[in-house]
């Protein structure tokens, strides 16, 4: 993560830096081109101005010689004056074609030149073995029929100075034909020119150099190259084809801005070259690239150093921030592991900042405290629940003990068989059944269902059962029993519980069965050898709601072999996984199927059939089954 941060920052920095570097370089380069051009052109103009002023002298002289008439004395005087009056002119000559000045004189070329001390000296070039008509300064303008600047040359007489000569041919009309009379020349010392060019100083090592039309170096910081080397010779020595091409462009009068490896320093230099129009020489001005870019380079170095420092600091900051985040997170992770093992007493790392991590730490601490509290409460609740469960177990046992559970309950009585099953949905239930003998010939039985389930229902049921036991006596009318129980239950029934109840009083001597109902499911009557049928029960309101409710008693007569089958709605409303009820129909058919079995077997079978139907689903309500067979 830290590496990624640093690398991406470095990448951004690099892009910005490169852009900046290349743009500044380009700006400087274009600036340099202008500077170099300006400098070169200024120098070219300076040289050109002097060359043009020098050119005027032999041009004027030749035009005078063409038009005017003169004798030898006048010519020499004129020539001397020209040399004396023009400080930039080193020497001047009027060289005639053989026998042109005078028939008897084959070679005549008066020449005036300045000595070192400034005195003007005379020399007749025609008097020596010096055959002037074969020299460049004479031959070239003669053959080309136009004025020419010579290549620079060493003056062999003078003080080892480099000179150049401007030669102008002059003519005379002879018989309508224009014939060459001779050449007028003006020599200039190139010392001033060399000084002008060497005064070009660019930065530390930049310089200018001048080459002639042949590419000969006329001025150059390396003195031994001057007049000794051409730019092409240097190109050959350096095996530099580009330099040769540059040289060719220079001597052909081109100008341009190029990158050129300096002969002096070997460094790359931005170079502007431009021709000197009058003599076709070419001036180049070199700007050393590394010095030009030195500032950018230095700046770039500083920027890079700053950038690297910045990146390091950034990396450090990122590391610290990341650590400040991850350290508490790691500590919390360790704490969580510890907590996961159940140690809630571990001390959480303290984090004082108000940022997200601080809030997380706070929440985490809060969570730990809550968790601890919750577990404490849970422990207490569990303990309480365990206590209740154990108490419920006891309650269950007590409740069950309230119900008659020994079958056959009255083994001496053969007049009837009775069997009952009660399966509470929870530890204790709200269903009840009971039966007991009243006198010698009556059996009282009851099946009820208290609203709700669990402990309240069980207690309410116990209350109901106790009331029944207390109220039923010989000759008691079942409806009266219900009315009384109702009255008792209504009294102080603040929890608004109620109970449905079916009760009957069987005279097992006669088979007369009196019964009353308080909102309970009607039982099944199975006449011996017949199909079960629902007993029509009298209407009666559930117990525990309306204090002065009244109940009716009905009577049927049982014949020997007839059965009564009672149940609570926990049976018919027992649900399987598909939420289907067990239903009265299943109950009816289950009872019918077992019509020949004993009441015990019948009860067990019906119970079993309910269990099969629910297939392991927990009971939603208590189940109570009670079967009585009258034997006569």
């Amino acid at each position, binding site marked *: 993560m830290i590496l990624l941060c640093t690398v991406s920052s470095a990448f951004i920095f690099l892009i910005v830096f490169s852009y900046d570097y290349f743009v500044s370089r380009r700006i400087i380069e274009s600036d340099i081109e202008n500077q170099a051009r300006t400098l070169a052109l200024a120098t070219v103009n300076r040289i050109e101005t002097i060359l043009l002023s020098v050119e005027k002298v032999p041009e004027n002289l030749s035009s005078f010689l063409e038009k005017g008439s003169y004798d030898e004395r006048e010519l020499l005087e004129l020539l001397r004056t020209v040399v004396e009056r023009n400080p930039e002119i080193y020497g001047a000559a009027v060289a005639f074609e053989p026998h042109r000045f005078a028939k008897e004189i084959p070679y005549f070329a008066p020449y005036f030149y300045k000595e070192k001390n400034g005195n003007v000296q005379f020399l007749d070039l025609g008097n020596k073995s010096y055959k002037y*008509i*074969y*020299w*460049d300064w004479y*031959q*070239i303008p003669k*053959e*080309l029929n136009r004025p*020419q600047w*010579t*290549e620079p040359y060493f003056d062999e007489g003078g003080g080892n100075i480099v000179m150049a000569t401007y030669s102008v041919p002059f003519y005379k009309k002879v018989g309508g034909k224009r014939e060459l009379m001779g050449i007028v020349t003006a020599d200039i010392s190139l010392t001033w020119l060399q000084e002008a060019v060497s005064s070009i100083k660019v930065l530390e090592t930049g310089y200018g150099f001048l080459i002639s*039309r*042949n*590419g000969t170096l006329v001025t150059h910081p390396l003195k*031994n190259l001057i*007049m*000794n*080397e*051409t*730019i*092409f*010779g*240097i190109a*050959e*020595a350096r095996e530099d084809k580009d330099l*040769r091409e540059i*040289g*060719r462009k220079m*001597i*052909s009068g081109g100008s341009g801005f190029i990158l050129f490896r300096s002969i002096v320093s070997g460094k790359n230099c931005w170079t502007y070259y431009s021709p000197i129009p009058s003599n076709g020489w070419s001036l180049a001005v070199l700007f050393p690239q590394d010095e030009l870019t030195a500032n950018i380079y230095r700046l770039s170095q500083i920027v890079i150093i700053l950038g690297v420092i910045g990146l390091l600091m950034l990396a450090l900051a990122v590391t610290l921030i990341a650590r400040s985040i991850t350290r508490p997170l790691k500590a919390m992770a360790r704490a969580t592991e510890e907590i996961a093992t159940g140690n809630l007493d571990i001390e959480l790392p303290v984090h004082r900042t108000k940022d997200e991590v601080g809030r997380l730490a706070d929440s985490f601490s809060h969570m730990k405290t809550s968790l601890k509290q919750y577990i404490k409460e849970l422990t207490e609740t569990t303990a309480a629940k365990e206590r209740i469960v154990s108490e419920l177990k006891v309650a269950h046992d007590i409740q069950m003990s309230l119900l008659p559970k020994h079958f056959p309950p009255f083994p001496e009585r053969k007049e009837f068989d009775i069997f009952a099953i009660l399966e509470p949905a929870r530890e204790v239930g709200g269903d009840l059944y009971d039966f007991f003998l009243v006198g010698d010939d009556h059996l009282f039985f009851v099946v009820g269902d208290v609203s709700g389930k669990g402990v309240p229902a069980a207690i309410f049921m116990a209350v109901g059962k106790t009331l029944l036991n207390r109220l039923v006596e010989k000759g008691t009318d079942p409806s009266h029993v219900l009315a009384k129980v109702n009255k008792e239950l209504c009294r102080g029934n603040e929890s608004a519980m109620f109970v449905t109840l079916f009760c009957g009083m069987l005279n097992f001597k006669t088979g007369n069965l009196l019964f009353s109902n308080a909102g309970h499911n009607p039982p099944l009557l199975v006449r011996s050898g017949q199909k079960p049928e629902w007993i029509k029960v009298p209407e009666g309101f559930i117990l525990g709601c309306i204090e002065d409710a009244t109940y009716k008693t009905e009577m049927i007569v049982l014949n020997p072999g007839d059965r009564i089958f009672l149940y609570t709605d926990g049976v018919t409303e027992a649900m399987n996984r598909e939420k289907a009820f067990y239903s009265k129909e299943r109950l009816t058919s289950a009872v019918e199927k077992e019509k020949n079995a004993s009441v015990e077997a019948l009860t067990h079978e019906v119970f079993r059939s309910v269990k099969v139907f629910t297939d392991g689903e927990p009971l939603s309500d208590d189940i109570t089954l009670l079967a009585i067979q009258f034997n006569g």
Partner: protein
Amino acid sequence: MIQIFFFLLFFLTPAFVFGQGSPLKKATFRPQWKPQAQFAGFYVAKEKGFYKSHGIELTLLQGGPAFSSSEFLADGKADFVTMWLSNAIQMRASGHGIINIGQIIQRSALMLVAKKSRGINKLEDINGKKAGLWGQDFQIQPMALFKKYNLQVTVIPQSFSVNLFLRDGVDVVSAMWYNEYHTLLNAGLNPDELTPFFFQDYGLNFPEDGIYVLEKTFNKDPALSCAFVKATIEGWSYAFAHPDEALDVILEYMSQANVPVNRVHQKWMLNRMKDLIFPLDNSGRIGMLESSDYQRVAGELKESGLIKEIPDYSSFFIGCEIRAEQ
């Protein structure tokens, strides 16, 4: 005391001076031009002590245009000189007793050069053009060429530079292959912009620089002459095998003679000398003057009217039968 001194001098001097056996023979040599790679073999042989090891105490004289080598030889100012074969045959024909003891340059370095930009791509294109030609012996071949191929050419005297040609004052210029041709290249002209004419391509090959000695000098001590030639050829072989070292030697001689020094130019010259000195037959022999070459040059001289009779070849060339590899 003095007797003892003379006694010592008499006995010790030979031991000092001629300590290596036979005494060194003194001789002088003058090349026909100022120091340059054209004479590399001589300077290298001198510097490497080849002359000494052949028993010669050689003095190198300064050459140059002020005097001609033939004058120096005729006047006895130099024992050995170099000059062109054409020059030497004319001397011999005019009665000077000079002999060739080693023909160095086998082929014409003299050539004509024209610019393609002036419309000259082949020899016939020269017709009607202006040519700058050097004088005297330098004109023998060009004139013979023009005559042979029936070319009308306006001849302009050529001086010391090729500037007139560079500025198109003439269309054709004479040049030495090892010198002015390179000057043209180093004035910015590319080889493909030039049309060179080599005389050997037109049946006018003239061997040039040869080593000459007066007959009487040779006869007095033929071994000396042959030793000189042998040492010189060793010098050339060494120079070609060690061009950088040879250039150093030449440049040093040039500096001493106050001649402008240009290493690249001298390197070109040395390379061309290698082309010119070794014969085309790849025999590796240096210093032979073939009879056919001799007859051709002498024939052209007679044709030009420069000599009346062709001197006898066998008495003109005394080969020392030296091979380069020896």
